[in-house]
């Protein structure tokens, strides 16, 4: 879908639920994937993803087309939701100690399979664990840059910051991450 088609679809989505459904189908995977890479937990990722799309629906009337992809707006909402989650749960439960969903509920086979699949990405999980110890501002730029493969300009759009700020956050974040790798 090119930008013009997307623009039309967003315009339609403000009047037609089906068009909104199309937008959702288009971006669900990207947004869920980003959230999962930030929290590395399927249960939490599902909750935050739901919250993200509900917020998007609530605020769609405010969305103004600025010539950049609608997904950036969704990324921004998702990013805020992830940050809110971390802030609310700060000093509550360390990420690695979040109980396995199997101990609370009777999840579907699909979830169990997904859990198993996630465990296969051990290298990612190890790095993510270290990234999650950094301040939120560093976590978001590193995840968007390296896991989402976004350009500096795109990260700046998503986070609503200047490109220079993103570059310096990235540099400092990587420096902190490197020190963390060196110490352990």
């Amino acid at each position, binding site marked *: 879908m090119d930008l013009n088609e997307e623009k039309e679809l967003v315009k339609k989505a403000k009047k037609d639920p089906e068009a909104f459904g199309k937008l959702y189908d288009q971006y669900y995977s990207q947004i*869920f994937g980003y959230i999962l890479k930030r929290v590395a937990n399927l249960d939490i990722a599902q909750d935050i993803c*739901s919250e993200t799309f509900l917020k998007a629906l609530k605020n769609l009337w405010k969305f103004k087309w600025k010539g950049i992809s609608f997904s950036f707006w969704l990324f921004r909402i998702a990013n805020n939701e992830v940050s809110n989650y971390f802030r609310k749960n700060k000093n509550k439960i360390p990420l690695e100690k979040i109980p396995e969903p199997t101990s609370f509920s009777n999840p579907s086979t699909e979830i169990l399979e997904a859990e198993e699949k*996630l465990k296969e990405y051990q290298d990612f999980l190890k790095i993510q664990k270290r990234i999650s110890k950094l301040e939120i501002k560093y976590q978001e730029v590193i995840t968007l840059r*390296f*896991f989402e493969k976004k350009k500096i300009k795109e990260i700046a759009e998503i986070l609503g910051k200047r490109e220079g700020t993103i570059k310096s956050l990235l540099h400092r974040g990587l*420096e902190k991450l490197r020190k963390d790798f060196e110490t352990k």
Partner: protein
Amino acid sequence: MEDLTEKLEKVKTPEIEILSHKGKLRQILLSQYQRERKNWLFFSIFQKLAFTGLGLILIFFVFNNLIYPNYSLAKAREIALKDPQIKAMIEKGGMIKDLQIVKNQAFVLIQTAKEEIVTAPQIAEKKALGIEEKAEKKEERPVALAEINLKEEKVAKIEKIVPPVVQFTEKEKEKIQEISQREIPKEAEIKEVIPPSSELKLIKKEGKIQVLPEKKEEATIIYQIDKGRWQGKINLKEEKLEEIEFLGEIENNATNGK
């Protein structure tokens, strides 16, 4: 750092999708769509009304505080200048010193003649200072305060006011003495300390108008060394003597205005 960057770039990230979640969330979103759409309409109308309201408030504020007062002041001046009594005052050398608007009424302050600042004459051209002193006393001419009814476009009242005389406070007196002692020669004899000329202003206070002098932080000092008389201005703010001027020499029998 490069190793770390490479590691981050090469790490395989999970590409997991939970279709049941995707489907359920889609259903929830679509079921909420119509309700949310009503909210969008409500908020967008509310936002438009709020912006319009803010715009109107801004226009009202600008009109009330910038356009209307200036227009009213110009109108008040025009009405005042048409009044025969004020016209006569202006023709005799008076001038409009200030204008103010209070509760739909305009007040115009007219100074009947230019206030004279005491300056000692140059003796070379005039007679001895003692003789001149009487003539050079400060003339406190009354001012007139005209009340203008803007609705009826006429002068409602003209009141003559004797302007209050500016007096030095004790602190100012001390300061003047201190600066004089420091700045003028020890053998000099201070003849007179003159308060500054006061510009009269109309001041709004508790919905009423008051004619008050706008005090300048200065004093004129006249001092004598032998037969020579000097004048200087004491700047109370910067605490220094400035604009020193030689007034001339006086005859012995005319000193001190005796």
